[in-house]
């Protein structure tokens, strides 16, 4: 039994359980369980402040988060966890807006607590759609700064390139093409359970490019064309609705 007892996974993807972020974070939580670590998971959307506003509420007032400092919903979820795992997709080179909002809320709650003892560990997992995981370097660094501000112990970050390859499917179902992800998360879990930082090899395995950039471009473009064709939109994908 390790020193680590409870882990909390926060999933910052609007695609929720169907997201690659949930797949990666969930698998890490599963592997931690093998080391005797109890885990639970939340979707950030479920922890107020959630969405900026209800999309369907056309006549509703402006989003609450536009008017005031967010409530501390995500911070309350931390509870007595001694490891926080934040998993999110890369949007425009950084964490998505709801993740930033949750980070701000957690930091504000931590500031109010002024606690210095027993700080939980913190690890970030980023799902990057590009084949080169380095697109997520800035997002991981932002996560590290967040951890520092919150006085969490930064245990490192991992970024998966080519996130579409996983596409929200669960890991651990015998797909050999995903074995490097499973191996990387296994290694990370073993280290985290010992309260150690994510090993470099684990980071490398998640970031491992499984196709060349040129091949990815060819495959990816065909994939988008096929998706459009399935909707009968293959001739419209390059439309310019806001052309000057």
């Amino acid at each position: 039994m390790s020193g680590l007892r409870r882990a909390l996974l926060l999933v910052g993807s609007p695609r929720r359980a169907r997201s690659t972020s949930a797949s990666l974070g969930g698998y890490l939580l599963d592997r931690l369980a093998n080391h005797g670590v109890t885990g639970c998971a939340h979707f950030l959307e479920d922890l107020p402040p959630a969405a900026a506003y209800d999309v369907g509420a056309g006549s509703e007032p402006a989003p609450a988060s536009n008017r005031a400092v967010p409530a501390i919903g995500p911070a309350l979820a931390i509870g007595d966890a001694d490891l926080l795992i934040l998993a999110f997709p890369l949007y425009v080179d950084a964490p998505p807006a709801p993740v930033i909002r949750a980070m701000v809320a957690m930091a504000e709650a931590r500031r109010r607590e002024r606690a210095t003892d027993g700080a939980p560990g913190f690890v970030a997992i980023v799902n990057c759609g590009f084949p080169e995981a380095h697109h997520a370097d800035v997002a991981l660094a932002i996560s590290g700064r967040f951890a520092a501000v919150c006085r969490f112990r930064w245990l490192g970050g991992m970024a998966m390139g080519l996130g579409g390859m996983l596409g929200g499917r669960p890991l651990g179902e015998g797909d050999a093409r995903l074995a490097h992800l499973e191996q990387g998360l296994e290694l990370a879990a073993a280290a985290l359970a010992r309260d150690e930082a994510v090993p470099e090899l684990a980071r490398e395995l998640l970031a491992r490019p499984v196709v060349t950039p040129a091949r990815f471009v060819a495959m990816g473009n065909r994939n988008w064309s096929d998706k459009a064709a399935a909707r009968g939109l293959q001739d419209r994908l390059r439309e310019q609705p806001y052309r000057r």
Partner: protein
Amino acid sequence: MRALLLNGAPEGESYLDSVERHLGAALAGAGWEIDRVALRQSKIADCRGCFGCWIRSPGICVIDDEAREVARLMVGADLILGLTPVVFGGYSAELKRALDRSIGNILPFFMLQAGEVLHARRYPYEWRLAAVGVQGRADEAEADLFRRLAARNARNFQCSLAGSVVLLESDPWEEAAAELTRLLVQVGVGA
């Protein structure tokens, strides 16, 4: 020439309003037309990550709210200026929400540029990008991160000119104004 000022200040943050006024005056003085959006007052939902703006209604987000107008203004602008407090080295949620919802302005298709995969352009226009970050207290690590993020955005949106600056609220306004002027010159305003 047309500039878009996206003010990502959250409620209660007034320093960026001064920055916006200064930039607006400088741009107007250089003969630019200006559009302004105070994002904290805009009704913009979070991106759903559905890619509908790429494969359901190409170029237009499937969520019908004010983000569509912001995206349209972005396409129409020669220069986009993002104003934000520096938040853990990144942007405010207010500014980020608008950016997250603007990916319909590029194509889903990929291309290689200098060996790196990027999304291809939807529009043939030359965009310029300037990011202004404000810190309440000096934090060089976060300032550096902010500049890296702005540079990544400029690369991924394939901007022809780009720059960023991080201001410290406690600095004399004259110094801040000089930094803003340098930034505008860097992105081709008044040069």
